[in-house]
């Protein structure tokens, strides 16, 4: 059984800057310049503009217990939602795409 959990979350687009500032001190390592933790653009239709941003972050709970403990307060202050899934049972469709869809959110794909 892995000690890693996948933290799947979304925040309102208006909260992006605040959310990044709140999360950054809790990370195991700083993000590269210009990179957001909440990097997945989301909207009700899957088309721009993004109304929310999502992430599906692998977190080793033994390495980053502070981040795991802070999740409830982050949700309360930032809005949006999160849930935690064991890495051992994580499913992209069920735990990420379907969960966002239940909140009325679809990833915005780039040009093809």
């Amino acid at each position, binding site marked *: 059984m892995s*000690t890693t959990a996948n933290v799947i979350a979304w925040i309102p687009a208006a909260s992006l800057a605040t959310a990044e500032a709140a999360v950054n001190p809790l*990370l195991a390592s700083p993000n590269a310049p210009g990179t957001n933790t909440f*990097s997945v653009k989301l909207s009700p239709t899957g088309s721009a503009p993004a109304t929310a941003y999502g992430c599906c972050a692998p977190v*080793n709970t033994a390495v980053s217990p502070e981040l795991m403990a802070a999740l409830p307060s982050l949700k309360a202050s930032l809005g949006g939602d999160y849930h935690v899934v064991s890495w051992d049972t994580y499913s992209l469709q069920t735990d990420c795409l379907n969960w966002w869809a239940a909140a009325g959110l679809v990833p915005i794909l780039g040009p093809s």
Partner: protein
Amino acid sequence: MTVAWLGMGLGLARYNRRPWSPALVPGLQPSYVPGVSRSKGLLWQNSAKTVPAVNAGDPIRVATCPYTGQDVAAPSDAARMTLTADSGKFGANGNGSSSVLLYTFPTFSGPWTVYAAGYLQAVGSGQNWVPLGDDNPVMVTYYGSSPAWFLENDAAGEVSYGGAMPTGSAVVRVRRDASNNVFVRVNGTEHAFSPATLTGTFTFNQFGGTRYQSIYSNPANHTMATLVYNQAVSAANDALITSFLQGLVP
């Protein structure tokens, strides 16, 4: 005389059985071989490289190439891949929405060869395997919805080969020769892309996903190795590399 010839014959036999090594084939670029990096203590959960990634599920922030010593790194903790283990063979997967490891390769304007070894459990519609990608359109990607392999250059020129990947272990080679002919070989059978040639340049810069198109490898598809050569590989050396990769998959 007989003894001498016998000795030479044994020497050749030994030569033909020699394993692949990075020094054997010129042109190897920084590559992503998580199982080998793990065994050498070269996988890390954090960018300071103080927390090693050892067990299945450990996130990978930095993977040091065991052959060139250069680092490929995730741009954020949220973008980390995670270590996988299948029948004792270590690889890595992504979360399917944002996982990448970045390394900016030199721009390839001539022939090149890319090898990928994986253990695939999700190859249907919407389920992809992305050995190499980029924020630009350049990529080497199996796109499950088509299903097809796609190859794109820096100018978004695109070729494809239509064919579903089998589930299970896979060793794939994608290459461009000196005449710009492009091919994909899956488990020993090579196919020409359509169109058959692709000119232009290729500047690969990420393993595991292509953010340009928001296409990422399905977490159920585990990558054991991605080897990149900035030149053609001879048939003899190709056999050695392929044998090495076959040893990495379950």
